């Protein structure tokens, strides 16, 4: 039997048994939804429907209903795409990278973080899809034989790399998530009394029985998937950044983009995990599983990645000056002092300044403060993408082409709609899926449970 140092804080509070974990995880599924859930769900659904309407209007009329113009041909849609993809990075990072690093605190949060990843990548995918204009021809991005020759897709283009990266990332995240869900669905199935519920979970659990050989394969598959997903998650935002970095726009054409984008993605993703989990632990009374220790760990990740992002911003400024290229210098001067100065300084305040407050242990273990910062960080990261995209484009090489961008109500509607869609999916997930990977969590109960640790320590003291 393996025991953990007494110095390590327990990851499961209280005196839990295996059965108690089952009960606690399954409670949101087996009990009726609280009123707060219905209110949140209704709001999310209305937002989602507004987005559906805005998309329908866009498809029926054309991209002209957005605020784009000849100079700023990419704006909110790509900003939102990058923002959502970035948020989607935390889930796989938590479940894959932290698995490889054997960080046990991931077990209470990986299920929800992966759910968040999948739901946010779905939102991200909508933007390039609809920006194509003729969305019914979206399958043209795949290398399918066609009547033009065949005229193939261009494998030299970062936009096509993106198609492959996002599709791979979404589908691999889904199977990674589902492989972990199968045993937990089986647990729900085996307890279900309602025949309809039992039947649904029977279908979802794929007949899982927890045989020893199946568990052995389960662990091997999880490990290999983690090994595959780790470089995958880093590749996705690297490739997203190449959409910009391989072009010749001042402010985009920089080699720092891949690591800088990846750090920003982890930063915003952890912030979104934090926002969601603070609500989940409160509403579903999971404070014993998602402890202050978990919150603090995530805050430290936010602080570190926020600092990396800050260093990247400063490096960008330095290199713009040091390069001696006047267009590059102007692009950065214009960001800070031009007509979009407010976006730049919002970004700086939210992303560089606010995470530094996490150096204080008192603040990073404070739930209200954490919640506020988690939202501030995501506002900041949205502004980062807006600053990179719009301020770099709106001052073209020819001053006669200079222009400004402001979104139309349709673009705002689509963005709000994706937020609604995201929360609709997440709220449905929170009521029907085991939100904590209970099978995995049970494996650490004896080593990291509060009562179990205490018992072992007291027992150990007698020898």
């Amino acid at each position: 039997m393996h025991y953990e140092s007494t110095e390590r804080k327990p990851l499961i509070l209280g005196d839990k048994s295996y059965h108690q974990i089952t009960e606690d995880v399954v409670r949101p599924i087996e009990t009726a939804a609280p009123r707060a859930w219905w209110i949140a769900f209704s709001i999310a659904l209305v937002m989602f429907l507004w987005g559906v309407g805005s998309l329908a209007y866009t498809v029926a009329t054309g991209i002209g209903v957005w605020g784009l113009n000849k100079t700023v041909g990419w704006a909110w849609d790509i900003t939102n795409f990058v923002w959502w993809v970035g948020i989607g990075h935390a889930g796989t990072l938590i479940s894959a990278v932290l698995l490889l690093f054997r960080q046990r605190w991931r077990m209470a949060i990986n299920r929800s973080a992966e759910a968040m990843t999948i739901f946010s990548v779905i939102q991200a995918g909508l933007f390039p899809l609809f920006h194509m204009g003729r969305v019914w021809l979206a399958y043209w991005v795949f290398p399918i034989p066609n009547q033009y020759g065949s005229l193939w897709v261009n494998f030299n283009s970062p936009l096509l790399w993106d198609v492959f990266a996002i599709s791979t990332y979404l589908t691999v995240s889904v199977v990674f998530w589902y492989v972990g869900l199968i045993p937990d669905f089986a647990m729900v199935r085996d307890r279900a009394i309602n025949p309809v519920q039992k039947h649904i979970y029977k279908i979802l659990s794929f007949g899982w029985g927890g045989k020893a050989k199946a568990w052995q394969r389960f662990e091997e598959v999880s490990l290999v998937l983690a090994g595959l997903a780790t470089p995958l998650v880093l590749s996705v935002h690297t490739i997203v950044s190449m959409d910009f970095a391989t072009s010749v726009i001042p402010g985009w054409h920089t080699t720092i983009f891949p690591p800088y984008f990846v750090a920003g993605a982890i930063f915003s993703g952890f912030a979104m995990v934090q926002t969601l989990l603070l609500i989940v632990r409160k509403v579903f009374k999971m404070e014993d599983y998602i402890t202050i220790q978990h919150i603090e760990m995530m805050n430290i990740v936010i602080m570190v990645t926020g600092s990396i992002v800050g260093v990247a911003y400063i490096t960008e400024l330095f290199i713009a000056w040091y390069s001696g290229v006047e267009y590059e210098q102007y692009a950065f001067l214009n960001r800070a002092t031009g007509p979009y100065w407010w976006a730049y300084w919002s970004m700086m305040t939210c992303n560089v300044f606010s995470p530094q407050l996490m150096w204080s242990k008192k603040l990073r273990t404070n739930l209200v403060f954490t919640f506020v910062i988690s939202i501030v960080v995501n506002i900041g990261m949205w502004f980062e993408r807006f600053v990179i995209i719009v301020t770099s484009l709106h001052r073209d090489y020819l001053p006669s082409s200079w222009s400004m961008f402001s979104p139309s109500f349709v673009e705002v509607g689509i963005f709000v709609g994706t937020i609604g869609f995201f929360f609709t999916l997440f709220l449905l997930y929170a009521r029907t899926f085991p939100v904590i990977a209970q099978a995995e969590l049970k494996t650490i109960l004896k080593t990291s449970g509060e009562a179990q640790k205490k018992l072992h320590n007291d027992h150990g003291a007698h020898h």
Partner: protein
Amino acid sequence: MAHTTESVPLVRAMYHDDDVLISAVKQIRAAGFKISEVYTPFPVHGLDKAMGLKESRIAVAAFMYGLFGLTVAVTLTWYMMISDWPQNIGGKPNINWAMNMPAFVPILFEMTVFFAAHLMVWTYLVINGLYPGADAKNPDPRTTDDYFMVELPAAEGLIEALQKSGAVEIAEA
């Protein structure tokens, strides 16, 4: 693991603790009884060794699938960009595949991961007999909660051995 064709009645012993289970499995095997299956609610570390299970080869399969994905990606990029319809895009050299290869690295990587991950998971589902709507493979629903079940063919002296090993319930199926 198909059941043996000879109809020896099965004995099912329930345990309520994973450490007891591990020592029980060791004891039972040391006493010369053959364990046909163990059902647990979570992966119990060391159980596969205690039962004498062979190591899983699924990682090797994943590696093969990855190589296959890489081959598909090489073939795809070569055929479409070099052989079937070469185009001068952004002045990138397309005389042969090797010269154009740096631009294909992301595609090569993504398809390697795509094939390795998906085919491995398909393999995992097939060899474990997992598919939507399959009947539950555990005979007792408590084994997905907090009970651990050892299933073995009936033999002389088995019940006593199981009782001694710490089983909380013993039933003949």
